[in-house]
């Protein structure tokens, strides 16, 4: 199943251990930390979906907030206005952002480098302005609230209004998405993404339709960002136009850079570290983004490959010396 057999055993072991730890954790921490961890899982999903487009395919998209916000609004509006059930709303919070990512990506992938960065920012800004202006539909910056019905799959049922139930639900979805992304980046398709990042011209010369593959990566990342947005709304029972602001994409950028781009594990780790840091700092300092900004600049200068990159290079050096 997995390409790197030796590595995958270690991965499965760590992954299962972390999952086990996170499964028993709600019994030891209070409701506040359960919600905190649930939000952390959502941001991890947002960060790893961004890692697919940035870390693996080499496209810096500041437009992921658009898909995050779209997913969040899909869930909220479908449940609030149209009484959809959770299963279908959540599914559509992937499908609708994918369709938008197809539209945005169709234009964006024609551009490269900083032009790509800017065009994705512009699309996100347009989304944010529309969300802010069309208050009758979106609630504007005040946002919309709702209460989700239980999630049902056959006989299986989870009450999402219960914080613990919501915790396990989000954990499960994020864990599955993680495995899906990991499988994808190890598949031949993932190798094409990496080859585009490494050398776009060469990938084209080999015969790959580079723009099409970029679009595929953009759509998958957009769909998963949408799912993250949908889960975020399910957790907070709320959506607002603020989620569409391009600076929301900055979260994913920070987590990915701090943890290590192109590793999946890195952005997840980065999200955990940065969010814990923020949570800890908020007791002493109102402006936690000050520290986040400094950490980001510091990491870019000192360890552009992030924490995972640092750890990996340590291991390599040790192996070389032995």
């Amino acid at each position, binding site marked *: 199943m997995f390409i790197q057999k030796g590595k995958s055993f270690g991965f499965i072991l760590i992954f299962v251990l972390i999952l086990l730890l996170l499964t028993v954790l709600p019994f030891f921490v209070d409701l506040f930390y359960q919600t905190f961890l649930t939000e952390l899982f959502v941001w991890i999903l947002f960060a790893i979906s961004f890692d697919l487009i940035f870390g693996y395919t080499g496209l*810096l998209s500041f437009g992921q907030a658009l898909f995050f916000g779209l997913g969040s609004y899909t869930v909220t509006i479908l449940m609030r206005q149209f009484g959809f059930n959770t299963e279908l709303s959540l599914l559509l919070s992937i499908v609708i952002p994918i369709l938008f990512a197809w539209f945005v990506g169709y*234009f964006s992938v*024609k*551009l490269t*480098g*900083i*032009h790509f*960065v*800017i*065009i994705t*920012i*512009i*699309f996100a*800004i*347009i989304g944010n*302005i*529309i969300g*802010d*202006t069309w208050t009758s539909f979106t609630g504007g910056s005040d946002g919309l609230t709702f209460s989700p019905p239980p999630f049902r799959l056959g006989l299986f049922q989870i009450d999402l209004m219960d914080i613990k139930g919501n915790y396990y639900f989000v954990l499960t979805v994020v864990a599955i998405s993680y495995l899906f992304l990991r499988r994808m980046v190890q598949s031949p398709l993932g190798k094409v993404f990496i080859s585009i990042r490494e050398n776009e011209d060469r990938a084209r010369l080999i015969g790959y339709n580079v723009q099409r593959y970029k679009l595929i990566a953009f759509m998958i990342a957009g769909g998963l960002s949408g799912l993250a947005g949908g889960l975020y709304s399910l957790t907070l029972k709320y959506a607002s136009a603020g989620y569409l602001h391009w*600076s929301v994409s*900055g979260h994913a*950028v*920070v987590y990915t*850079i701090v943890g290590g781009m192109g590793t999946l594990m890195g952005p997840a780790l980065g999200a955990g570290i940065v969010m814990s840091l923020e949570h800890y700092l908020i007791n002493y*300092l*109102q*402006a*936690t*983004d*000050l520290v*986040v*900004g*400094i*950490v*980001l*600049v510091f990491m*870019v*200068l000192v360890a*552009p490959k992030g924490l995972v990159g640092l750890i990996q290079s340590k291991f390599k050096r040790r192996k070389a010396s032995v």
Partner: protein
Amino acid sequence: MISNLAIAILNGIVWGLIMALIALGLNMIFGLLHIINMAHGALYMLGAVVAWYLIEITGSFWIALVVAPLCVGLIGLIIERGLIRTIEDKPIITIICTFGLMLAVQQLVLMIFGGSPRRISPPVAYRFPLFELQYPAMRIMIALISIGLMIGLWIFLRKTKYGLWMRAVVQDREMAVGLGIPVNKVYMWTFVLGSALAAFSGVLAAPIVSVEFMMGREVLIMAFIIVIVGGMGNLEGSVLAAIMISLIQGIGSLFVPPSIATVFALAFMIIVLLIRPQGLFGE
């Protein structure tokens, strides 16, 4: 109606000139160093904030107008030497780095200056009649100062040694190195000049808008639009595009909500990016 239109046009030109200064700074840095400075809006904001403190101390807007850009220019010097120089050959990484810088500067100002907006009263309070309405003379003065600065910048680029060096580095960096131009220094001074320009326009804008830590966020995006529509690296194009876009937005806002006018400006920019990535006024 006619007076509303006249005021919309005047406001459009005044704001367009301020935006032109901001975009010129951004575009100079882009044209030479090939980096997108996400912290440019934060430097603009910093200019206004430093000016607010200077006015509190000295009581003079004019002293602030001169000193605040110098202070921010110094900060630009530190940024360029300390951060940008080490990663200047990686454009995507510099975007992320300056994004982090933007966050840090904004939040630092939030901590020190506070979150509530503050006003800088215009040093010239006189208003002259315009049809049946009145128009503040200060805005005309701001426009004249901006034009004066742009002329100064043009002379600097065309007639001085440094200006010649800058243009040479833009044209061919390798050749410029070969000819003995201190490219490193040119980079540094360009970044300082760009930062100072952002701060200068921040001070100029301060009597019109209110001073607060987020004031640079939307301006940054407008500056991007202008630089792209005018053409990256094309300074004259930036000035034209700034005035054009501000006029369209100003006049458009008379007929449709301002947010819709902005959406149209953004959609226009996407089309320019796709069809003419070299900008409307590029060759």
